Structure formats: structure tokens, C-alpha cells
């Protein structure tokens, strides 16, 4: 919502009560190229956050994380979430796919942990059903579809995250990341290059943390 010179009470009321409104801005913000670019980026970020909250309300998010934590191995949720943020930064992955990855593993685990509790939300949460936790403990990185373009990037990223988490659980995350880093060539898949590029940050994730809902 835009205003010409100054905000008015009616506009602020609208912003407060209409959840579909993201922000209330002066029109002049769109008059210069540099300011307009920043505003559009901010608006886009607000939109993605609002969509996430629209699909999964903040209260439901907390309940889901709590239930999923009981089902998943210790530290998996926090590791997965943080590693996803690090690795996806340089990848050509859509925000919808990112949202699905971020919440798919949580929602699937929560529905296994407390099937009855989330039954009323089943329809709304179905879009996240494609991504679920699997134990990748026995799999080598070379057996994953890291560069196979017939598999979606989101699915391949999910596999790599589960693989790294399995290594973390076994206490071999540092060695696994180092092995990837050493094997990377200029022709390696983007996913492996991303792991190699951020190897220090990923190794530092080998500590328990709390996922922020």
C-alpha cells in the first residue's frame, strides 16, 4: 500500500488488520532507481516470509518443530536448517523449493511423531510431503545424484544435506567435507563446489543448536 505525502490512520488500520498487506510505503520510494531496487528486494523478502506464515502459522511452526525434534536424530533439524541456508545461497534454487526443503523434513517428522495432532492441517501441509528424513548413514557421496540434472536441484540438495547430517551423527563430518573439498575440480557439480566453498562453515555446524521457528 502506498501513500502520497504522509501516512494516515485509515492506512495504518488496514495494515494492522489485513494480513494480505505487506507494508505501507511513500510513493516517492519508487521514484529513484537505486531506492526502487532496494524496496523491491525488501518487498520480495516480506512476501516470501508472509507466504511462509500464511501456509504455516507461527504457532503451528513451533508445534511442528517441537514434534519433529522428538522423531528426528538429535541435532538433525538444526544442522539441516543451517546447512540449507549456507549451501543454498549460491545455488539456483527457487524460494518455493527452499520453503519446501526447510519445512518438508520438519512436517513429515512431526506427522510421524504425532499423527493425530496435525490431522486438521493435513491438507495445507500436503505440499511439503515430498521431502522427508531418511537415514543416509551408509551412502557415499559418489552414489548421490549431485550432478544428475534429471533429478531436481531441491531433491539433490536434500540428499547432500542428509548425507552430511549422517556424517555428523557418525562424528566424521570434518573428514567427509574435507574429502569432498579435495575431490572437487572446476568441472564438478555446483552442489559439491558449494560444499567445498563453505567447508569451514559446515564443519562449524557440528555443534548442537536450536532451530528458530
Amino acid at each position, binding site marked *: 500500500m502506498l501513500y502520497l505525502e504522509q501516512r494516515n490512520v485509515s492506512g495504518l488500520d488496514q495494515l494492522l488488520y489485513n494480513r494480505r498487506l505487506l507494508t505501507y510505503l511513500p510513493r516517492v520510494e519508487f521514484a529513484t532507481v537505486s531506492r526502487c531496487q532496494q524496496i523491491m528486494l525488501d518487498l520480495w523478502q516480506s512476501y516470501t516470509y508472509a507466504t511462509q506464515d500464511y501456509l504455516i502459522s507461527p504457532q503451528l511452526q513451533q508445534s511442528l518443530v517441537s514434534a519433529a525434534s522428538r522423531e528426528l536424530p538429535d541435532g538433525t533439524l538444526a544442522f539441516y536448517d543451517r546447512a540449507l541456508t549456507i549451501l543454498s545461497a*549460491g545455488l*539456483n534454487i527457487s524460494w518455493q523449493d527452499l520453503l519446501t526443503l526447510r519445512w518438508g523434513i520438519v512436517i513429515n517428522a512431526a506427522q510421524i511423531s504425532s499423527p493425530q495432532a496435525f490431522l486438521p492441517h493435513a491438507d495445507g501441509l500436503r505440499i511439503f510431503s515430498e521431502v522427508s528424513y531418511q537415514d543416509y548413514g551408509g551412502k557415499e557421496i559418489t552414489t548421490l545424484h549431485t550432478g544428475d*540434472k534429471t533429478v531436481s536441484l531441491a531433491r539433490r540438495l536434500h540428499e547432500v544435506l542428509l548425507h552430511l547430517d549422517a556424517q555428523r551423527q557418525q562424528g566424521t563430518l570434518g573428514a567427509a567435507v574435507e574429502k569432498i573439498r579435495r575431490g572437487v*575440480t*572446476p*568441472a564438478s*557439480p*555446483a552442489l559439491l563446489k558449494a560444499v567445498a566453498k563453505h567447508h569451514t562453515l559446515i564443519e562449524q555446524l557440528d555443534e548442537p543448536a536450536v532451530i528458530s521457528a
Partner: protein
Amino acid sequence: MTSHLREVTHEEILAQDLGTVTIDRPGIKAILDFIFVWLDLAKCTVQLRGNATQLALPCNLSVDTDNLDYDSLMIQLPREESECWQEGCMLQINVEVFRRLFRFTLRCEFVHQGTEHRVLTTSLPEQIDSANIRHLPRVRLTQAMGLALPPLTIADGTQTTWHEAQVLELGLHSILVKFSSMVPDAPTVLRFGALELTVTTTRRSSDTLVLQMHFRDGRQAGAFFDIYRLVAYPNLRPRHSFPTAEVFALYMKTNYLKQFLGEDAAGAVQGELEHIWDEVGRTQHGLSNDYVAINGAGDLCGASSLTQAFSDQFGPFWVFHQMCAVNEPDMLQCTRQLYNWRTEYLLARPESTRSLVWFRSSSRWLERIYVKLSRLASPRSHLRPVLWVKGVYQRPTAATGSSRVKESQETFGALPRQLAWSDSGAVAAIGPEYLNACASLSGALHPGDGDVDFAALSPLLDAVLARGAQTALSVHVTVPATAPIPNGFTAHSSDRFMHIAHEDLALLLSCVDHSIALTQRKFSR
């Protein structure tokens, strides 16, 4: 259109280029985005840098689409042709898309050996050279096309013996021919039917020659264009080859006349238009060039014109005008031909040309073409918002002759056109009234990069009216977009004006081809 990399080398293209533009880091991502979006229409070649004797090899260029930003490029080559290409070597890449050539240097960082192909992973370019392809691509002839052409004979240096030759590829500036008899050492003249042209040999193999044409003047270039269009623009026909009543029906059917003249006036001008078209038809390849397009069934489906409508001390201004096309789903190729022939026609001429066009910004199609062109073009071309007003201009009874106004006269058939220009660069012309079907070419403007108001154009209008012995006439005047509409005048729907310098014409072809491809892609989705 095809570009035959083995026949027209990129060196040939770059040698023809009058001004290569170098794009540095900030623009590189945009160029790479452009290349990869249109990779299916691009032709890529690669050669080892510094190895001038090696032919450029056709290659497939790709990128890892999993990355948000480019981190490397990948080049796939046939294995047997690239055995010596190793890590660390420097590669020169040429990408030709929409008649633009992008050239950049890459360092090979990794070589992957496949069974049939070799894939080189490379660095990103530090800079990209962009050239408009001035050496216009030659069209490779099919057998049917060859039969449509007049017979070709070539004389040797002494012009005593004429040899029959077969045209393999035909371009506006060059021609690839195959000889069936003894090859003369230095052919100097060729004949296409009755048309005789001076040529020089630019490349030669055992039985083929690339000959470069040298046109004596614009009329000869135009005559050759009529041969070239048989293969490059197969849907085009000269307007005068159709009965004027049929052409009038086309302009009515496409709503061109109703849109600009109004429902009632459109029908009333038929007699006037048909008379003018008959007269103008006599000046084909002179002052005005008018072509119509036919569809697969042979019915008229579009038309466009190119006319020397104004002049100043440096020569004529060509105007792109009278473009109309029926709204049929398979008209895209005809539309491309109706737009592009005018540009290629001007490119073929030996002299440097200047072109003008007015268009409506509400047309996304036109806006996309000309805004893109203005962004890429040299400073000598410019696009600006204007107010194009039309109304009856009354010449003052008192003499207003100005010594700074120069005047001249041209004739379209038997019909005179009065022209005037001033030292400030403003121009005006009147007559014949329906030289453009909506009577928009009688008027005044300042074609340069600057707005001139109505009052400053009045002396020119006075001059052309006085010269034509008229006291009042309906005119179109181009004034600044912010100017008020003069009393008694109305605003034309066209609100953009572009002046196109000769060196930017190749870019216009590129912009039209790009827009056609965008539209095709939109339809196919």
C-alpha cells in the same frame, strides 16, 4: 537465414565492423544471460587463441544451471578435432546470435575426456567484444530458390569471356558461386540477367569463389535487392505488381486507414491513393520503395514502405512508414520480412543513410524493438518522446521568406514534393499529400537530437507552401512531448520518434529478429 561458419569466417565479419564495442565486467553477466537464454538460436565456435591458421570449430557452449551466478563455462567439442587442447590453453569463443557477434577469451581449466566428445571447463570472460554483423549473412540456396533467380554469368579480367556459374549462397554484399567451367583468375564483372555488377574476389577454393559486390549507386543496389529478396524475402512483392485496388483493400482490411484517417475519410481517399501509388510505383529503387507481402495462398497480407521523405544539406532522410499486416497466427515470418527488408535495403546502399520512424509507445511490440535499439545504438541514433500534431497550417499572407531556409524539389512520378531545411537541422516537406496513406509525410520536424517548437518550424512550412503555391495544407508537425497542442491541431497517436544512423541499422535487424523470436517463444509456450 543461415550463417555458414566455414564460408564466412568471423574474421571477415570483424574486419567489416566499423566499431566493435567492448563490454567489461558489469555488463558481462547480462551478455551471458542473453546468450544462454537464446542458446538454441546461437552459433558458437571456438579456436585456440593465437593460432590464426586453425579454423574455428563449431562447439556447444553450456553452463551449470545449478549455480545462481556463472562460475565457469563448458565447451563441448568433437574428440577427434580437439586432441591437442589441454588445460591452461587460451580459447577464443565466438557466439553469433540475432546477427550480433560476441567474442571473448577463456582459459581452459579442466578437460573431461568423453568417448565421443571432449568437454572443456573454462574460466569466465574478463571482457566481451560485441560486433554487429555488417557482413550480412548469405542465404544458402535450395534448388527451388536457384530456379527463381535470373541466370548468372561471370566475366574474366578482360571481360572477353563470360562463364556460367551457379549461385550457392546469396548475400547483400557477397555471393558464393560454383563454376562449371574454367575458373577465371580475377573475375571483375558479373551479370544477373540484365543486371551487370562490378565484383572483386575475396576468397577462393578449388571450384568456388566468394565475390564481393560493389554497387555504383543506390539504384543499382536496389536492382540487386530485387534479386536478393527472391531468396531472402520470398513473401515480398513490389507493390506496383498488384492492382492498386487490391492494395487499398489490404490497407482497409488491416484497419491502417481507419485508425489514422477515421472510418468515414478512409473510404473517401481510395481514388487519390490509387493515383499516387501508380505514380510512386515509377520511382521504385529511387525515392520510394514499396513492397507487399503475400501469404502461402498468394493473398496480400501486409505492406511496408521506405521513402526519401525529407532532406537537408547532408542528403536525404529515409522514413520507415505505411507498415500494415493482417492479424493471422502464422504471420510472424511475413512480419519479420516486412520490417527487415527496409533495413537491409538501406544497408545494401553504398552511401551512408539516415532513417526516421514515428511509432506508438502503446504498442509493446514497437516499443520493445526501438527501446532496445536505442540502448544498444551509437550516440548518432536517438529515440525521444514527441508530440506529433496534425492540422491545417495556414501560411501568413505577409512574406516570411528566410535566407537561412534552403529549398529543393523532388518528383514522385509526375507528382512534385517541395522540401526545405534550415542550418539548425530542421526540415520540412509537402506533397504528394498521400505519399503516406494517412497523409503524414507532409510536415516539419527536427530530426536531430533536440526538440524544436512549432514556431521554429513555421518558416520551413511557409517556405514549402510558398514553393508549392499553396496557402494552406494539412500537415504533421513533430514538436516536443511537453509542448501544448497548437490551436486547430490534434495529437497523432504516434508519440515516439527515432532517428537511426547508418551504423546502427544492423542492430535494428538484430532487435527485430530478437522480438520475433520472443513472440514465437511466447506462442509456443
